[in-house]
């Protein structure tokens, strides 16, 4: 009962938003050529769902972001752990990281296309450029902020190096690592759409760009909302994994 009320509280404002939009369209205040009414968009969405192209676009985008995300996570977490454990590695790596970090992934697009052509590969590369940094930084922060007292406790109980890493260092840093992964996945989802808008022949980014050129505005908006919904669901998934893997933080 209480839960239903909570759901209702979230849904009502959204319904209100669409109603106002619909009414404004029906009153002729909004020009349907630039902003079609919600009912038309919903019809378009249902129509598109039955086409293969749209489903392929969705799976393509998700596939690209997941592959890029996994590669960047492996590098980011691995390097973050090393840097957190060995100050001299951090001192060497960090200036290089700081040099590349301020470059937005979008600025890599020309080089990405020059090096990798069109299709999946430039997208993986661009996603990597966006995802690596938040994951690396957060992992490093988590590993290096381990309280001295836990190190002392572990050593005085006779911990081997391996046990120290698997049972103390990494679990203690997991909340930080997950914060990085969540930010990273959000960035990755943004980057994949941009990458597809300029350098791919499929995917949701490609789909909205294509429909813009043929002035198929309802499809553009369907694409936009789909991107938003998938981003939302991905974040929920990450939160779910976070609760499963870090039970001591969320009980």
């Amino acid at each position, binding site marked *: 009962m209480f839960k239903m009320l909570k759901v209702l509280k979230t849904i009502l404002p959204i319904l209100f938003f669409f109603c106002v939009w619909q009414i404004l369209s029906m009153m002729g205040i909004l020009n349907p050529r630039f902003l079609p009414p919600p009912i038309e968009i919903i019809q378009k969405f249902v129509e598109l769902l039955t086409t293969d192209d749209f489903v392929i676009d969705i799976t393509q985008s998700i596939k690209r972001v997941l592959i890029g995300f996994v590669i960047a996570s492996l590098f980011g977490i691995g390097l973050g752990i090393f840097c957190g454990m060995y100050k001299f590695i951090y001192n060497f790596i960090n200036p290089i990281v700081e040099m590349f970090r301020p470059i937005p992934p979008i600025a890599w697009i020309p080089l990405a296309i020059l090096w990798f052509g069109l299709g999946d590969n430039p997208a993986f590369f661009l996603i990597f450029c966006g995802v690596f940094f938040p994951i690396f930084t957060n992992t490093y922060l988590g590993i290096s902020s381990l309280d001295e007292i836990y190190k002392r406790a572990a050593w005085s109980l006779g911990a081997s190096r391996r046990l120290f890493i698997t049972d103390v260092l990494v*679990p203690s840093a997991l909340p930080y690592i997950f914060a990085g992964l969540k930010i990273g996945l959000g960035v990755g989802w943004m980057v994949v759409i941009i990458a597809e808008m300029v350098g791919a022949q499929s995917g949701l980014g490609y789909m909205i760009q294509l429909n813009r050129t043929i002035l198929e505005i309802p499809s553009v908006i369907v694409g936009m909302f789909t991107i938003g919904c998938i981003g939302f669901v991905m974040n929920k998934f990450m939160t779910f994994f976070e609760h499963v893997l870090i039970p001591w933080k969320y*009980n």
Partner: protein
Amino acid sequence: MKIEFKNIIKSFAVKNNHDIINVLDDISFEVKNSEIFCLVGPSGCGKSTIINLMAGFIFPDKGEISMDNKLVNGPGPQRTVVFQEHAIFPWKTVRGNIEFGLKCKNLSKSKINDEVNCLLKKVKLESFADRYPDELSVGMKQRVAMARAFAVKSEVVFMDEPFASLDSQTRDILQEELLNIQIELKQTIIFVTHNIDEAIFLGDKIAVMSHRPAKIKEIIQVGYERPRSASIRNQPYFFELKNKIWLSLRDEI
């Protein structure tokens, strides 16, 4: 088993400053097998520094610390530590925390399980085995800390004001439990406290320390045998000892 602390001098550099604080000034003492040796002294006098030195976390400027005539040159499972608080791993359950030291020893899974169950019983936490530290009271956390340290069966256990943040009833009960466990496992315990009652109730010997730079003022022999009943806290001899230690300590505060 014997622990020796010979002519130890230790100082620390102050951060952002070129000053040096002398913490320990020529401290020597000796702790014998299965003895409970208490250190009392004013706060900030360097009691914890002594523990950190003996555990091998830090090293003296001068002097030697040895265990069975072997120099202490780093931390290890033959000398475990029970810290003041917040030192049990928050990411491990009660069971996981107690298990940690045993996992370090590469014991078989079933052996580890038996040992942990036995310890859980000793510290009365059987029904909390799968809880995380955040769900426990301070007293329970310190029970876990004790069980974790006793699990590795080291010959020496250092305890750095382990009961300082407990209310006085819980503290009394944990002191009694500690004595019971010690009678069973016979470890040597070096116990740091600023609470005189606690030192008398637990200790065979009590070293009274001066303020910084600390020296040992005197080492007092406590006459009570073990096991000790809670009622010794009300005996005239207990008060006599307490008075004696307080007189010695009050000049230092």
